């Protein structure tokens, strides 16, 4: 994009740069060398693995000693775990199921949170800005929704979740398929929400910075805006992880306890 001269060309160059930056790629551009990645891995795949390793290392280090009262890092992590267990899992699924399923939501929350936060850190890429990743994560939720409901309530109980009580049969014929579709729509919405949030934030930051490239010095104030958006991203990363986990818990609870 360096050699572009006219505004239109520069705009195209910025657009190309932004989209190539937020897209998955098969190389990892580090400051002095470029790491080529195999096709099955790709940059976002690498980020997934790095995130997993960071989490394992973090928890491994924090809880290597089994203190009666955790301090420092372990205390902070434990507070988050407690928050996820109490405010997401137990709040939605009830005391018994909430406690049993808390590990799943903790894993989801910390995984998504780490992936989101890695997007803000330079040199790393946003794996949650990859539709494949968010789809896979939302399908985990869908799997738990369907599998858990069948395990808990049986096939008939699972089917009953789509048939609300006290509704006449003609309405049911229309309503039941909508309810059934709703399950997939919820999952789809979950996918898109996380993906679009993470992607849009990065696109906005890069476009704001790109304005300087397109219009020159006159657009310098947009850098301040970009920094503002970047700080907003720091807030949005945990928020979206929370929303993703919370909605997962809500959807799972809805289908596991259809009477509510």
């Amino acid at each position: 994009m360096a050699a572009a001269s006219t505004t239109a060309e520069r705009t195209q160059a910025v657009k190309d740069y932004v989209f190539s930056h937020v897209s998955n790629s098969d190389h990892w551009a580090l400051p002095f060398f470029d790491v080529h990645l195999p096709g099955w891995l790709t940059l976002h795949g690498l980020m997934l693995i790095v995130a997993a390793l960071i989490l394992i290392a973090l928890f491994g280090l924090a809880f290597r000693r089994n203190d009666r009262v955790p301090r420092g890092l372990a205390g902070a992590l434990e507070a988050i775990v407690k928050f996820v267990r109490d405010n997401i899992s137990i709040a939605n699924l009830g005391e018994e199921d909430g406690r049993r399923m808390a590990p799943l939501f903790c894993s989801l929350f910390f995984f998504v949170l780490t992936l989101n936060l890695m997007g803000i850190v330079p040199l790393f890429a946003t794996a949650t800005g990859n539709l494949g990743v968010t789809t896979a994560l939302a399908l985990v939720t869908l799997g738990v929704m369907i599998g858990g409901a069948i395990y808990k309530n049986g096939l008939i109980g699972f089917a009953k979740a789509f048939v609300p009580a006290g509704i006449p049969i003609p309405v049911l014929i229309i309503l039941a398929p909508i309810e059934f579709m709703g399950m997939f729509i919820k999952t789809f919405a979950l996918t898109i929400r996380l993906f679009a949030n993470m992607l849009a934030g990065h696109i906005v930051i890069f476009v704001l910075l790109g304005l300087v490239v397109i219009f020159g010095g006159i657009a310098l104030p947009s850098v301040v805006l970009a920094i503002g958006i970047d700080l907003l991203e720091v807030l949005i990363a945990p928020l979206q992880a929370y929303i993703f986990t919370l909605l997962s818990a809500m959807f799972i609870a809805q289908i596991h306890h259809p009477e509510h």
Partner: protein
Amino acid sequence: MTGTVAAIGAGLVAIGAALGIGKLAAASVEGIARQPEAAAKIQGAMIITAALIEGVALFAAVVCLLEVLK
């Protein structure tokens, strides 16, 4: 041309989301003003709802993006 239409679409979505979040914020602030002791709960619910509205807006934004990149 599709880019222009998509930009208009993005603008419409922004209006809708802004209206939604504006109403939400107004109601929340009013709620907090009436019951300051419930501020934490209202804030939590507000942030969640705001994120949901934002999700819808971004959903539309992605559709617009799809149009731009076609």
